[in-house]
Each structure stands twice: as structure tokens, then as C-alpha cells.
């Protein structure tokens, strides 16, 4: 594992390279010989899928930038020229637009896998925090990318989101003007958003390298939450994990292709096919689906909290919903890592999932009737989950008995080395049962 390398250069050339720039050794140690727990399930394949989609977004983005014009008078037409006139432009743009959504689908599944299996707990705090930073960068990138087509939702989304900053007293307005480069969203805003939208993915790529590095230092978690103890607990990354990740990627790409080729506008908003008009707001401003839970929390605060007015309160709650994630490693008091062995927390975990879905739905609703109330309840649970449930349940809960090792969990306490006859679909022994119930 980390610390020693089993790479053996096979010929004169690779020996020569290895003595000068041991890149093949790095790749071999990281992606071939690297040991992964043998009991990883498909929830652990989203890291690879995310890497693939980062590549898809950067590649399609770079070629789209060859045709895009970042000027208010030209942006909309240039995007339509991509759709109509550029060779394969429709494909590249639909891949990029839907790719953003699928990037977020994958990242949310990746995050909820992490929450379920307690992957954020020691010693993986830095690995996890790097992940949250990637998530923040993704949100910024996606938001600025959505502004570029310069449709109605682009414009008004940018107006609303940069308006968050005006909630802060005194410094708010100057910050907003600084961000916009003017008094409203305009050409200067579009230009800088384009510049930053091009920059941020490469920053994401940089943090991803750190994320993978940290992963390879501490190793992966696994559904039991028991650390790897012996080589019997692991399989080499290649071919076992590679092929499994590859299969998951292709299945994910199948769903992606379904959207790109058949319902490419399903995840978009019709109003963005109307050019931006600074004098006319659409009937309902709705962010992209992946921001909806946060948008619901923003709108849930409709009342003043002491000296904090409702506008600032909403903004603080929204930012807080992400800030709180940075503290999970220290909020979680449980001795056990995996939720599969935590009967009480497991219930709350699924309530959290339901809560996030509910908030997402509420974010898409107009702010009327019962929706703001429901949003407030959902928001309260969201914070209560992290700030109260997570620490308290960890202290009062009696977890189920953990297996002694991954090998034991997979093979059963009486079984020997990893030459078990059973296929993966039929793990043996009662100790594996908890994962199944999850």
C-alpha cells in the first residue's frame, strides 16, 4: 500500500524513465497495484464517474469556447449558431449542458455514499474537506456557466444570486458591484463570468488531484467501515476495480446519452431560450435543479431573527447549509463508521435523504401557500440532522457488532483465504446482512 512500491520496470526504456521521472511507477502504484477493499459496492463507483465527467465538461467546454462570443449582444446568437451551424455543435452543447447536470447527479450520489458509510470520519477528514471544496467550486462553475447563454434565466439567475451579497450590511452593495463590474448584470459581468467559468474547472482538476492523493494515503472506506487490516481484505485496483468502475461508467453514460439525444432540454428551463431582457422578469425564477434544495432553504427564512433581517437570514442559512458540511468529521461522535451498523442513525439518514429531496421539490415551487412553511420545516431538519442528530445519536446508540475484518465480513468467520466459491451476489454470513438492509 502507501509507502512501498511494487512496480518493476519491464524493459530498458521504462527503467531509464523510472530513474528520471517515475511517472509510470506513479500510475502503476495508483491505478494498477493500488489495493482496494474487496467488498466495495457500486455506490463506490461514482468517484471514477466524476473524473470522467470532469473530463467531458472540460473537453466540450474548450471546443464550445471556440465558437462562443462573451458579449451581451452576441452571446445568445453565438450559442444558437453553435446549435444550428457548427458541425456537431448541437451535440457538443447538449453534452455540456446535460453533462453539468449529470456531474451533479454523480456528485450527490458520491456525497450521500460518503454520509452513509461515514467516509468523512478520521483519518479521512482532509480527503473529505477537499471534496466539499470541489463541490463548492462545482457550484460556482455551474452557476457562471448557466449565465453564458444569456437567456432570461441566465440573466435573472445571475441577478438573484449576486443579489445575495446585498444582504450583508454595509459591505454588501460594494461587494455586489465588485462582482458585477457595474450596477447590474451586464456585459462586464458576462465577460468575467466567462473568464472564471473557463478557469474554475482547472482549479477543480487541481483539487481533484489532491483529493485522489489524499485518498491514496488513507485508503478507501468500505461498506463495513472496518479498516483494511491485511492483504486478504483487498483486491488490486486493476483489473477488479477498473472493470467494475468501467462498467458503472458505461451504464451512467447510457443514461446520459438518453438525455443528451432524446430529451436534451428536460433538465433545462424553457425561459432560457428567450434572450435576456433586463426589463422583464420571467414569471418564476427557478435555478437549475441541482441548486433547488439550497434555494428552498434561502426562501424558507421569511421572518426576522432578532437583529438579522429575513433576507440576510436566508442567505446565511443557505451558505450555512454548506459550511456545516465542513464540520461533519467532528460532529459525528459515533465510534462506528458505517451507518449499516447503526440502527438508529440509519433511520435518520434516510430522513435526511427524504428531506433533501423534499427541499429540492419545494425549491421548484412558487413561494406561496404551504410551501414556505414546509421549506422551513425541511431547513430546520437539515440543520438539526447535522448539529443535533449526528452528535447525539452517536453517543446514545448501541451499534451492531462489527466484523473483525473485511475478509471475515465477506467470507464469514470460519472461511479462509479469498478463494471463496460464492459469487459476489451471495455474500455469506450474518455479518453482511446489515448492508443489505440499507
Amino acid at each position, binding site marked *: 500500500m502507501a509507502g512501498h512500491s511494487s512496480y518493476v520496470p519491464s524493459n530498458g526504456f521504462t527503467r531509464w524513465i523510472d530513474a528520471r521521472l517515475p511517472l509510470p511507477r506513479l500510475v502503476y502504484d495508483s491505478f494498477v497495484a493500488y489495493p482496494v477493499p474487496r467488498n466495495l459496492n457500486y455506490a463506490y463507483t461514482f468517484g471514477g464517474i466524476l473524473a470522467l465527467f470532469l473530463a467531458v465538461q472540460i473537453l466540450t467546454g474548450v471546443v464550445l469556447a471556440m465558437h462562443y462570443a462573451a458579449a451581451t449582444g452576441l452571446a445568445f446568437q453565438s450559442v444558437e449558431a453553435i446549435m444550428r451551424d457548427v458541425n456537431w455543435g448541437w451535440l457538443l452543447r447538449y453534452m455540456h449542458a446535460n453533462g453539468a447536470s449529470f456531474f451533479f447527479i454523480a456528485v450527490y450520489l458520491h456525497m450521500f455514499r460518503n454520509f*452513509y458509510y461515514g467516509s468523512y470520519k478520521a483519518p479521512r477528514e482532509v480527503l473529505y474537506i477537499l471534496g466539499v471544496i470541489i463541490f463548492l467550486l462545482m457550484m460556482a462553475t455551474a452557476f457562471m456557466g448557466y449565465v453564458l447563454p444569456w437567456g432570461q434565466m441566465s440573466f435573472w439567475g445571475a441577478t438573484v444570486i449576486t443579489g445575495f451579497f446585498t444582504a450583508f450590511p454595509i459591505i454588501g452593495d460594494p461587494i455586489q458591484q465588485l462582482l458585477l463590474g457595474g450596477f447590474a448584470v451586464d456585459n462586464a459581468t458576462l465577460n468575467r463570468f466567462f473568464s472564471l467559468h473557463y478557469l474554475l474547472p482547472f482549479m477543480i482538476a487541481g483539487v481533484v488531484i489532491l483529493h485522489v492523493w489524499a485518498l491514496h494515503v488513507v485508503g478507501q472506506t468500505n461498506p463495513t467501515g472496518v479498516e483494511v487490516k491485511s492483504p486478504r481484505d483487498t483486491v488490486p485496483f486493476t483489473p477488479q476495480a477498473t*472493470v467494475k468502475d468501467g462498467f458503472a461508467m458505461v451504464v451512467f453514460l447510457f443514461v446520459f446519452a438518453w438525455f443528451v*439525444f432524446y430529451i436534451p432540454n428536460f433538465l433545462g*428551463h424553457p425561459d432560457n431560450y428567450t434572450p435576456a431582457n433586463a426589463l422583464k422578469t420571467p414569471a418564476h425564477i427557478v435555478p437549475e435543479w441541482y441548486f433547488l434544495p439550497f434555494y428552498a432553504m434561502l426562501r424558507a427564512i421569511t421572518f426576522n431573527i432578532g437583529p438579522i433581517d429575513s433576507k440576510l437570514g436566508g442567505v446565511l442559512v443557505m451558505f450555512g447549509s454548506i459550511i456545516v458540511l465542513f464540520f461533519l468529521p467532528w460532529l459525528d461522535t459515533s465510534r462506528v463508521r458505517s451507518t449499516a451498523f447503526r440502527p438508529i442513525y440509519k433511520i435518520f439518514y434516510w430522513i435526511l435523504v427524504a428531506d433533501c429531496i423534499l427541499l429540492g421539490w419545494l425549491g421548484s415551487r412558487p413561494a*406561496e401557500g404551504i410551501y414556505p412553511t414546509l421549506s422551513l420545516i425541511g431547513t430546520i431538519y437539515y440543520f438539526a440532522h447535522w448539529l443535533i442528530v449526528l452528535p447525539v445519536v452517536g453517543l446514545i446508540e448501541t451499534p451492531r457488532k462489527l466484523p473483525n475484518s473485511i475478509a471475515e465480513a465477506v467470507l464469514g468467520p470460519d472461511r479462509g483465504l479469498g478463494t*471463496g466459491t460464492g459469487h459476489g451476489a451471495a455474500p455469506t454470513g450474518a455479518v453482511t446482512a446489515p448492508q*443489505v438492509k440499507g
Partner: protein
Amino acid sequence: MKTLLSAVLAAGLLSTMPLANAQQDAVTPAPTQPEAGAAAPAAPAGEAVAPDAAGGHGGEAEEHHTVHYPLKHPASLDWSFAGMFGHWDVAQLQRGLKVYKEVCSACHSMNLVAMRSLGALGYSEEQVKAFAAEYTVQDGPNGDGEMFERKAIPSDHFPAPYPNPEAAAAANNGAAPPDLSLIAKGRAVERGFPTFIFDIFTQYAESGPDYVHGLLTGYGQEPAADVVIQPGTYYNPYFISGPALAMPPPLSADQVTYDDGTQQTVDQYARDVSAFLMWAAEPHLVERKQTGLIVILFLAVFAGMLYIVKRRVWDGIAH
């Protein structure tokens, strides 16, 4: 079995995903608007009455009662370009072009569509050239610094009826007729839960042309007693942002002459021009679906092969 969790995770997240499509709930859930009815798009029929502003039905008085538009959902029609094997009905597109040219284009521009692309409607290069030559466009400046008029050529876009949006608004009581280039993608009536989830699997992506058709055929109905129609507007329960719109009923029977014997009804005109506008908004739609079929089949086969490889690689390794 271990995949169960990931599957559930996936299912959970997937169900949040399509919410993006939601913009405005015409099928308002019970708490706010108990009487709004027509949920299924296939049943846009008359029983979906205009919301009762007095709001007494459920027994609870609705204080801030928001009416959601459109009042009626458009019907889902059968379009040749729908679904996995969608294709253009070229004759229909040609008829739709005729309707656009003879009716809509008097007020509505189509700025993003170049006449050269009409070749996709089955016209020869010469026909496209002749079509373009019927229009004049402004060009210039010439050597004397003057702008001049010339006959349009295929590389020109459809000329707009008004020189600028202000002129368009001034000529139409302040309501500028929208550009039609993208209207079939820029208007969609929200489908509501759970229909929008089924739409992923049925590949329903025709809410634009359905809406346009619904609007064009939705005039002439009797508004409910409590619906206030502003002077100079025309009641249309299919209009997406109000009970009535500034556009008078644009189509009437036998208004446009069809050479191919197709019936000359308002409904037929509306279907044809909606299909044409879908083409105008998404000229590569059919190419996209044809490419998609190859990609989908490829990925299915590739996934199958990888799965077998994966089974073999993991053979004998309990996990």
C-alpha cells in the same frame, strides 16, 4: 444484494432531478387550489375550469389566491418527430412554412433561421434561391455610404417584419410579437408530478409544439364569469402567462391554400405551423435522434460486454 443500497440511493436522487423542469404548477396541489383539475395532459378538457377567485369550494377561504396559467393544459398530439425514431414530415413542414410565411410573418420575426437551411424541408437549391429572392433585405453601405435594398439570398436570415423591437411594440399596442425562432423550445407548460417522471422514459419533449398548437386553436371559448379580460386582449385558456393575450386569433379556415389536398382547417394549420416551428427551433432534431440510436445501442452492447468481463474478472473472488 450489496448493490441494493446504491440502487436506492440512485433512485432517490433521480427523483429529485427532474424538478428542474418544474416552473409553475398549473395543476396546483390541493392546499392552495382545491378546484383546479386537469392533471393528465391527455385530458385537457373543459372541466378544468378557471380557478374560482371567490375560492369557496373547499370550505376554506383562500386569502392570497394565486391563479396559475395556463388555465388549460394543451393536448399531447402525435408528432412525426416524437420518440426514438422521430423524423420530419417534410410535406407538413412545407405547409407549415407556408402558414408562417403567409400569416405569422406579418408580425413575427424568425431572426435565427437562415433561408439556406430550408433545404432540409425538401427544397432544391434553386427553389431556396427563388424563395429567398421574394424577400428584400437591407445591405450596405455601398460605395457612396448609402444603405440599399437588395433581393435576399439563401445565406440571409428571414427578414423581420419590423426594424426593431420598439417598432414592433409600437405597431401592436405595446406588445411586441415574440420572435418565433425558438418559440417551440421557449414555451412549455409544466407537466406536473408524476407525469414529468414518466416523460423521461417516454421521451416526451414536444411540450413546445403542443403548446403552440393549443394556443392557436384555443381562441373563441367562453371565459368563466369571473375572468377579467382586459380591453384589446383575447381570451385564450391555453395562454401560458395570463387569461388573455394581445394576439387576435391569427388563423381561420381556408386562409392559406394547400396545394397537396390537405384539409384547410385551423386545427391543421396549427399542427403544421407548430411542426414547422419545432424544426425552426431545433433543425438538427432528427439527426440528433438518429445519432442517439447508434450511441444508445453501442453503449448497451458495450455495457453488456463489460459486465461479462467484470463477472469473469471477479470470478472466484468473494466480495
